[in-house]
Every structure is written in C-alpha cells, then in structure tokens.
C-alpha cells in the first residue's frame, strides 16, 4: 500500500509539472492553432538561467537562505523566459500567421533546435548538478515519503493554476484572450487587439514554463541543454489528452498523465512477470494517448469540432 501511495505522490508531482507546461501549449494552440515546439526549450533556458543565477548568488552572498535564492532565481528566469518567448513569437511566428499551416510549425522546430544549440554553446553540453536549496529531510506520509521540494512543487502549481484561472476568467485580459481564441476577427471588431493578446499569451505561457523548469531542476537535481525536450513532448501529449485549447483539460490531462506514468512504470514489472521493465515508462504517455484519441478523437474535455479545411 505504501508503495502505491509513493507512486501516487510521485505521479502528482510529475503531473503538476506536466500541467504547468501543458497550459503553455494549450493557450498558444487555442489562440493561434500552432504547436509551439519551442515551448520545452523555453523551460530549458529558464532552468539553466536559474542555475547560473543561483551559482552567482552562492558565490557573492553565501549567507542567503535557500528559499530566497530559489525565489530570486525563479523571478529572473521567468523574466528571461518571458522575453525570449515574446521575441520568438514576434520574429518566427507573427510573419507567418497567414501562411500555409506547416510553415510556422517548421520555424517552431527550427527555433527549438536553435535554442538547444545556443544553450549548448553558452552553457556547454555537460550535465550540471542543480543545488538542493530546500531542506533535504523528507516527511513521512502514511508510509510514503515526500520531500520539501515536492511539497513546494505541489503548492506552487496550485497557486499558479489559481492565479491563471482568475486571470483568464475574471480579468479584462482574460476576456480578451477567450474572445480571440473563439474568433480573432470578431474579437478585433469588438476592440480587442489580437497582436497584444497573442503576445500576452506567449508571456504567460513562458512564465508557467519557467516555473515548471525551475521545479524540474530542483526535483531532479540536474540541468542540461536537452532537458526541455521530453517534458515538452509529454506535456504536449497531456494537452492533447485533455483536449487541446481547453485549460482545465490541460491540467487534468497533465496530472492524469503523471499518475499513469508513475503508477504504470511502478507496476509494469509485476504485471508482465518481469518481461517489460520500468524503462518502458516513456512510452506509456504515447500508448495512453493513442488509445484515448482513438476512442475520443478530440481529447477528454475537448469539444467536438467539425473538421474545417
């Protein structure tokens, strides 16, 4: 039982990070119908930035408490990520808004490779240890353990999600975002500036990715230039799983995916009599995705949309 509880805790932590990243994908997709392949790389840049900032702070002000360092580095990383995502949209996606659909997808992939390469040049391609800034002694919860970092991840995710929901549902900007994703042209007629809304969406997505990036780094303890790829892919899967374009769907999809992965990889060995091991964890996401989409082609919470050419 405690093994099961442990897998659930790990799954929730993993899933909440997926949810944060998935929100960035789903918001962008909801508004401009683009799979922002570079989203995972924004996460990576944020994590590496926070690593550099923490390194600098540990050298210059060694007395600072760990949580404060993490917070400062998170803020700086968010600013960097937001600026980066804003620039990416402006340079690589905006000029192509009326082009064939595949064109921005290719530039997105190009930006993703470019960012990885630049990160390799700036930060060198080795794995860097990310310092443990919060207390390392874990708490006991009914036979399972949970670390301070994991508690922080769950807390930060909950707060971010609450803030985002408030922003989208109860502010003027949120209303503009919802209107633009419904129909950009009509929204523009009603006095919404789509360009501004799109930029805001990219900035918000980047901040969420930055939070997820710093959490990822502190949970796994390493950072490197290709760390954004797999979480990005899984988070996109989560977004599709929940029904892309739907914010609640992204959160539900992310958390479910985290749980499925962690419980699945924990028990697959038992279930198959040791034939398949936990190294198959990475394909769970995709198998679940294929099954779900086959049964429910628009995702768990997606609305049925008629295929428009």
């Amino acid at each position: 039982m405690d093994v099961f509880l442990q897998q659930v805790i790990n799954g929730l932590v993993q899933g909440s990070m997926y949810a944060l990243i998935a929100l960035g994908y789903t918001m962008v997709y909801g508004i401009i119908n683009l799979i922002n392949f570079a989203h995972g790389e924004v996460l990576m840049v944020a994590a590496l930035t926070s690593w550099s900032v923490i390194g600098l702070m540990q050298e210059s002000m060694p007395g600072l408490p760990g949580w404060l360092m993490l917070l400062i580095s998170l803020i700086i990383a968010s600013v960097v990520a937001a600026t980066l995502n804003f620039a990416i949209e402006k340079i690589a996606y905006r000029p192509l808004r009326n082009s064939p659909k595949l064109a921005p997808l290719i530039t997105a992939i190009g930006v993703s490779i470019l960012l990885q390469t630049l990160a390799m040049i700036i930060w060198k391609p080795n794995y860097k240890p990310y310092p443990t800034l919060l207390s390392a002694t874990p708490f006991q919860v009914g036979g399972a353990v949970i670390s301070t970092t994991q508690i922080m991840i769950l807390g930060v995710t909950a707060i971010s999600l609450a803030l985002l929901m408030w922003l989208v549902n109860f502010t003027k900007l949120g209303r503009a975002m919802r209107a633009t994703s419904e129909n950009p042209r009509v929204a523009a007629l009603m006095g919404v500036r789509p360009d501004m809304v799109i930029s805001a969406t990219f900035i918000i997505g980047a901040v969420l990715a930055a939070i997820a990036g710093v959490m990822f780094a502190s949970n796994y303890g390493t950072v490197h230039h290709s760390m954004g790829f797999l979480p990005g892919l899984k988070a996109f899967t989560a977004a599709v799983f929940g029904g892309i374009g739907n914010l609640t769907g992204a959160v539900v999809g992310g958390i479910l995916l985290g749980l499925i992965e962690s419980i699945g990889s924990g028990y697959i060995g038992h279930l198959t009599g040791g034939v398949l091991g936990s190294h198959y964890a990475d394909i769970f996401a995709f198998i679940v995705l294929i099954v779900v989409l086959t049964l429910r082609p628009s995702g768990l919470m997606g609305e049925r949309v008629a295929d428009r050419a």
Partner: protein
Amino acid sequence: MNASQNTKTIALGVLLLVLPLVLQQFGNAWVRIADMALLYVLLAVGLNIVVGYAGLLDLGYVAFFAVGAYMYGLLASPHLFETFPAIAAMFPGGLHMPLWVIVPLGAALAGLFGMLLGAPTLKLRGDYLAIVTLGFGEIIRVFLNNLDQPVNITNGPKGLNQIDAIHFFGINLGKKMDVMGFEVASVTLYYYLFLALVLFTILISYRLEISRIGRAWMAIREDEIAAKAMGLNTRNLKLMAFGMGATFGGISGAMFAGFQGFISPESFSLMESVMIVAMVVLGGLGHLPGVVLGAVLLSALPEILRYVAGPLQSMTDGRIDAAILRQLLIALAMIVIMLMRPRGLWPSHEHGKALQAKEGA
C-alpha cells in the same frame, strides 16, 4: 519535350553519372555524403506522398525507416544466428538472406505498420495526427532500445553490426570493383544503386501524382469534406497514402542498413523524422523537384560544412565544433527559409494559386 529541355535533361543525367567519379578523387568521404543525400531524397519523396499529396502531417516517419533497416539487419547479420540455436540449425551457413527476400519483406512490413498506425488514427484532426505519429515513432524507438531482454531480438542500444553489404547478380557492393582498369570504390557503387532507386521512386511518385489517386489525395488535402462529398472514399485513400509512404520508408531503411553495415536505435530518433519533414516542407510541399532540392540541401550542405568547421573550432576555444555548427546552420536555415518563402524554396504553381485564392477570400 522540346530540344533545349532535352539537352538540359541529358546534361543533368551525365552530371549525376559522373559526379561520384569526380568526388572519388577527393576521397570516399565526399561520395558518402552524396550517398546519404540520395537516401534522404528517397525518404523525403516517400514522406511527400503522405504530407505533400494527402496533407497528413506524419512526425514519426523514421519508424518505418527503422522497420526496414532492422528487417535487413536481422536477416543479414550474425545476430539472430548467434542468439537462437534454432535459427543456427536451420541455416547452418549463417543467416544471409538475399536482397530479393529482404527488401520486399521490409517494404511490406513497413507498409503494414503504416496501415496499422493509420487505421485507428486517420479520423483525427491534423495536429492530433501529428502527435500520434510522433508518439508511434517514439514507441518503436523505445522498443528497439529495450527488446534485448528477456529475449534478445534487437540487441538493444548496442545495435546490430556486421550486416552484409548489399549484393545482387553476383555483384557485391561492399567491395571495390575494377571496370576496364578504372577502380570504382564501394561507396560509388552504392551511389549508382541509390541513384537508380531515387529515379525509380520519383517516377512512381510522379505517376501517382498525376493519376486518379494522386488527384484524390490532393482533393483531400485541400478540403476533406468536399472530397468526401464528391464520392471519394477518404478513409481508404488516406490509408493508402500512409501505406505507400511507409513502404518507401521501409525500402530506404533496408538500403541504409546494407550501406552502413551497422544500425542502432540512435539513428532513428525523433530528430530524424523532424529533419525529413523539414526537407519536404522547405523544398516545397507536394512538388517533387522542390522536395528533392530540400532533401539534398538539408542533408549535404551541413556535411560539407563539417570539413570547414575546423578553424572555427580553434577560434572559439572548442565551444563551436562541427556538430554544433551543423545543428546551428540547420536551425537557421529552417527559420530563415520559412520566413522568406513560406511555401518552400520551389513550390508547385498550382498549390500556390489555390492558396492565394483562399487568402484573398
């Protein structure tokens, strides 16, 4: 075809035939680059059927390439022979299937995989299809990586080696050959084989494009609902496009395995799928000359840069090496070309017209 066009075609043909003999003088590495470029052309033309004609974004194309390559690798290397005594008993001389068995098998298996993947997923909308195919590619790669236990089938991350070179009609492409006193290297022989295959594939592809099926695919690409209303069986046609594309992928995979003599799951990463899609889109979606141009450009140019990157590496204190420079260049090319020419370097006229009309509406 008028006279000047004829001369151009003949000149191009002669150039393509002489090219490896000239490159050979500078070293076999240059011919290898040409070989790989031809393989990528093969893949890009195959994917063009799926993405370019039928408009189905497939981000897991490399899976079919892998299926073909592993088919060849397993049936023509000592791996199965050494691992399974039963097979050793069946083929006392070692498992060396002839090309005529492996290539059709590989192509058929890849085509079957394509249909299997396509059957449940083809009713999905564009982007969902993209992510499902991407997931499928990853699944195949993870299986190749892990199927070394409990029964060692793929030899895991170590891959298969000592794969037989391609040989047929008593000609072994793995060894150099003397033709009237002139020495033709093994890579050059492969070049001619791949060139012949590429020409054959382009011919099939072109005939498909102007056929009833090709027109149906393009109708689906432009507007699926309208195509359905015109009485096209869109599901079967889409499945066919998937199967066809996968078959070409499988054949190229088999060629790749024979050419390299070694394969491992590393060669079949998602990045590879993305590169092939980029080749098709950069060159010009659905336009054969454009696709060929895109494939040659993206595969050969960065390789050539590898040879001039040395000085740059010493200048930047080892931070920028050849591999990084290559990646940087590919990324920049993808962004810049798309920004300047969103329809690709060499788009088809017809497609362009239809799109302009749509934008104007």
